[in-house]
C-alpha cells in the first residue's frame, strides 16, 4: 500500500515533480522521495539513490538538492530511499530497509515512471556500501535485476586494515577514529558478513555493470581500489575513477570547484552510458 503527497519544489528546478511515497519495510513504514522530470518519458530509465551518513546520520533531505540537480541533468526519475540508522537500529536494519525500498520500486514502476528493465542503483559513502550490499542481496535472493550499480566512495570494510585507512587521520571529514567508531555503532557487536561489509564478500560474480569513484585522499581509497579489482576479476564490467586532490565527499562540500564539476559530469556520463542513453 502506498500513499503519496506532493512536495512543493523549493529550489530552482521547476520542471520536476517531487512526491513522497510510503511503503512497508521490515519494521514499519519507509519513505521514498521521487524526483520526476516533467519531460521524462512515461516509462523512462530510472535510478534509485541511497544517501550516505556513516550508517548513523543523514536522511532524504540531506541529498535533496543533489537529487534535484541529478534528475534534471539526467532527465530521468530518481527514487531516493531512506533507511534506519545506527546506533538505534544496527545492522542488518539498513540493508534490509534498502532491499525493501529497491524491491518496492521494481514492484511499482508505473507509479514511479520507470522502465523496470532499466533501473540502476546508486549510493554514496554509507549509501554506496548499502548499494553494494543490496545488489548482493538481490543476486542471492533472486530479486529483481539491476541494470547498473554506482557505489560512490563506498563504505564497505569494517577492518580498517588498508594503507589509506591508516593515512587519513586528520582531514576532518571521515577520518580513521570516527570511521572505527561508526562501524562499531553500525555492527552493534555483531560480526560483519558480506551484507554488512561488502569487502568481505567472497563471491562478487553476477553483479551488474558498475561505476566506482573515490578521491585519493579518502580513507576508503584502498578498499575501493581493491573491490574494483576483485569485481573485474569476477567478470563484472567496472569503470573506476581515482580523483587526485579529492577528500571524502569533497564534491559535496565544494560543489563549485572545477574538480567537483568533473566528478559529477563523469558520473552523469557513466549513468547515461550504462542506461543506454547518449552520453
Amino acid at each position, binding site marked *: 500500500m502506498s500513499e503519496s503527497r506532493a512536495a512543493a519544489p523549493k529550489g530552482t528546478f521547476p520542471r520536476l515533480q517531487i512526491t513522497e511515497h510510503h511503503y512497508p519495510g521490515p519494521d514499519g513504514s519507509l519513505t521514498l522521495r521521487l524526483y520526476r522530470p516533467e519531460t521524462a518519458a512515461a516509462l523512462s530509465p530510472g535510478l534509485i539513490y541511497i544517501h550516505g551518513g556513516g550508517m548513523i546520520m543523514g536522511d532524504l533531505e540531506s541529498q535533496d538538492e543533489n537529487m534535484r540537480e541529478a534528475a534534471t541533468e539526467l532527465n530521468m526519475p530518481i527514487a531516493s530511499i531512506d533507511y534506519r540508522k545506527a546506533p538505534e537500529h544496527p545492522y542488518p536494519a539498513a540493508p534490509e530497509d534498502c532491499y525493501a525500498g529497491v524491491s518496492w520500486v521494481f514492484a511499482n514502476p508505473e507509479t514511479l515512471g520507470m522502465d523496470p528493465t532499466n533501473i540502476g542503483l546508486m549510493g554514496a559513502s554509507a549509501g554506496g556500501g548499502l548499494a553494494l550490499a543490496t545488489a548482493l542481496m538481490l543476486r542471492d535472493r533472486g530479486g529483481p535485476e539491476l541494470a547498473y550499480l554506482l557505489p560512490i566512495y563506498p563504505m564497505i570494510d569494517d577492518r580498517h586494515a588498508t594503507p589509506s585507512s591508516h593515512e587519513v587521520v*586528520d582531514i576532518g571529514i571521515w577520518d580513521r577514529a570516527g570511521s572505527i567508531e561508526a562501524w562499531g555503532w553500525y555492527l552493534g557487536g555483531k560480526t560483519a558478513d558480506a551484507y554488512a561489509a561488502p569487502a568481505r564478500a567472497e563471491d562478487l560474480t553476477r553483479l551488474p555493470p558498475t561505476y566506482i569513484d573515490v578521491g585519493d585522499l579518502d580513507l576508503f581509497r584502498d578498499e575501493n581500489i581493491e573491490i574494483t579489482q576483485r569485481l573485474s576479476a569476477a567478470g563484472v564490467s567496472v569503470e573506476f575513477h581515482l580523483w587526485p586532490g579529492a577528500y571524502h565527499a569533497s564534491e559535496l562540500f*565544494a560543489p563549485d570547484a572545477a574538480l*567537483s564539476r568533473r566528478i559529477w559530469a563523469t558520473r552523469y556520463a557513466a549513468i547515461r552510458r550504462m542506461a543506454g542513453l547518449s552520453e
Partner: protein
Amino acid sequence: MSLWDRIDAESRPPLEALWEAHPGGLNGIPDIVAR
C-alpha cells in the same frame, strides 16, 4: 608532502571553514552520533 598539501585548492576552503568552526573538523565533535 602532507595529505593537506595535496588537497585540491578549490576544494580546500569549505574544509578550512569547517576547521575554523570545529577545530579538528568532524573529529572535533566528541560524540559521533551528534554529528
